[in-house]
């Protein structure tokens, strides 16, 4: 099922490659459940390029964070492979002028959802994985002990189960046919709503327990394509000094307020922060709440329109009720 898409992706990239510096895509990782980013510079590397539901990484961060990707021949574009969610990060970066639309060549891939390997491992401890493939609504994995089948719903990433934009919102070429979204945007905040039904005390208890696990390794921030301050991040600067080195829960709360509030009205819910977290803290949920707020108050959805201005970077004098 995905062999065809991979073939089509390779052919499309091959045709465009002479005009491009590099194409950022995915290749096989250390086992069949994992993919890893790849940088294709010449046709000889094309056989590495793959597309499958294991291509979890949002590659758009490389365009702003990777000096090697940025420091290339400016007369040529950079190619990038994106799923629906990833394409919204590109839109957000274009809005804020971190990249220019005509600097990039976007290979858009309509996506039916990506597999969260941690959910797979929780369902069946697998050893020596030999193959993994998605067939219709099942994931089939073969390991040292034989074959295992999982319902796709049980192993898809949380963000994919609530995805309203599986088709890339910008692209130069589309690989495959557009797919039907699982949910409409208005219905994609179920988990936030379940949190809202709890009492204030229970919510505080929930976040204390979750955020107390935080190591402040900043993997969530580093993985976020829109956390663009790099070594000027106020979580680490000494001047101004927002955070100390203390291992307190309040420090952890403040760090997550920093990440979340700096992403308010900008976050596209790509889920990279949550995926990158070694402590499995549902950190994207915090940003989902902020997005629900900006959707309700300002009818704004991040990363959809390259011409739009994120709502907290502008104002509306006529706004009432605020």
């Amino acid at each position, binding site marked *: 099922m995905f062999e065809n898409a991979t073939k089509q992706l390779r052919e499309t990239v091959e045709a465009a490659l002479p005009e491009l510096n590099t194409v950022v895509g995915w290749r096989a990782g250390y086992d069949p459940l994992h993919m890893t980013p790849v940088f294709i510079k010449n046709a000889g590397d094309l056989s590495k390029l793959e597309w499958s539901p294991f291509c979890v990484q949002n590659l758009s961060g490389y365009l702003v964070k990777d000096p090697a990707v940025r420091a290339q021949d400016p007369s040529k574009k950079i190619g990038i492979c994106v799923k629906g969610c990833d394409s919204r990060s590109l839109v957000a970066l274009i809005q804020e002028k971190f990249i220019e639309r005509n600097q990039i060549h976007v290979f858009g891939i309509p996506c039916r959802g990506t597999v969260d390997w941690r959910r797979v491992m929780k369902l069946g401890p697998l050893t020596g994985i030999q193959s993994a493939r998605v067939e219709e609504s099942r994931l089939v994995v073969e390991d040292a002990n034989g074959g295992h089948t999982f319902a796709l719903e049980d192993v898809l990433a949380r963000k994919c189960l609530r995805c309203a934009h599986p088709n890339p919102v910008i692209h130069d070429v589309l690989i495959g046919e557009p797919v039907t979204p699982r949910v409409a945007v208005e219905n994609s905040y179920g988990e*936030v709503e379940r*949190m*809202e039904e709890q009492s*204030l*005390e*229970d*919510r*505080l*208890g*929930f*976040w*204390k327990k979750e955020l*107390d*696990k935080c190591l402040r390794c900043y993997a969530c921030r580093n993985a976020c394509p829109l956390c663009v301050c790099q070594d000027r991040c106020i979580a680490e600067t000494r001047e101004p000094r*927002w955070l100390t080195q*203390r*291992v*307190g*829960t*309040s420090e*952890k*709360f*403040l760090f997550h*307020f*920093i990440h*979340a*509030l700096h992403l*308010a*009205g900008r976050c596209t819910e790509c889920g990279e922060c949550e995926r990158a977290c070694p402590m499995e803290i549902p950190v994207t949920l*915090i940003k989902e*709440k*902020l997005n629900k*707020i*900006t959707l309700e*108050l*300002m009818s704004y959805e991040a990363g959809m329109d390259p011409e739009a201005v994120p*709502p*907290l970077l*502008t*104002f*509306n*004098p006529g*706004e009432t009720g*605020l």
Partner: protein
Amino acid sequence: MSGSNSVPVTEQGMKIVGFLCNWCSYGGADTAGVCRFKQPTDLRIIRIPCTGRMDPLFAAKSLIYGADGVLVSGCHPRDCHYAVGNLYARRRLEVLKHFLPFMGIDPRRFHYTWVSASEGQLWQRVVTDFSEQIHQLGPNPGIGAESEIFEKLGN
């Protein structure tokens, strides 16, 4: 007025942090003082150049670290000294207000409003009402400085 920024905390005193814009609300508080309007003494004022300078993280940090309340006040919309600072602030602070309870922080501990330099009486009412509300809520339990994990490691 000078004395009212450094009132000693009484036994039942609450710690309320007030972020007031230089041009309107700080002046309004001054007017209230000059007119000798009676005011509660729980508020510690931080003067900011404009509510546009008001990083929502100032309020978040105060509440996370145990301030009992945070009050932000600036020029009325359309009266900003810098024309539009408070219009940016309005959006940011409104978003914060909706966000705090999601993280378990009582949104009643946070209030933002607009008071001009001539509105001493309005200022008196704003401070009095907000202080009363905070007294009703009682001390902010905060997040708790120590991490459970840290304590476990220590033992």
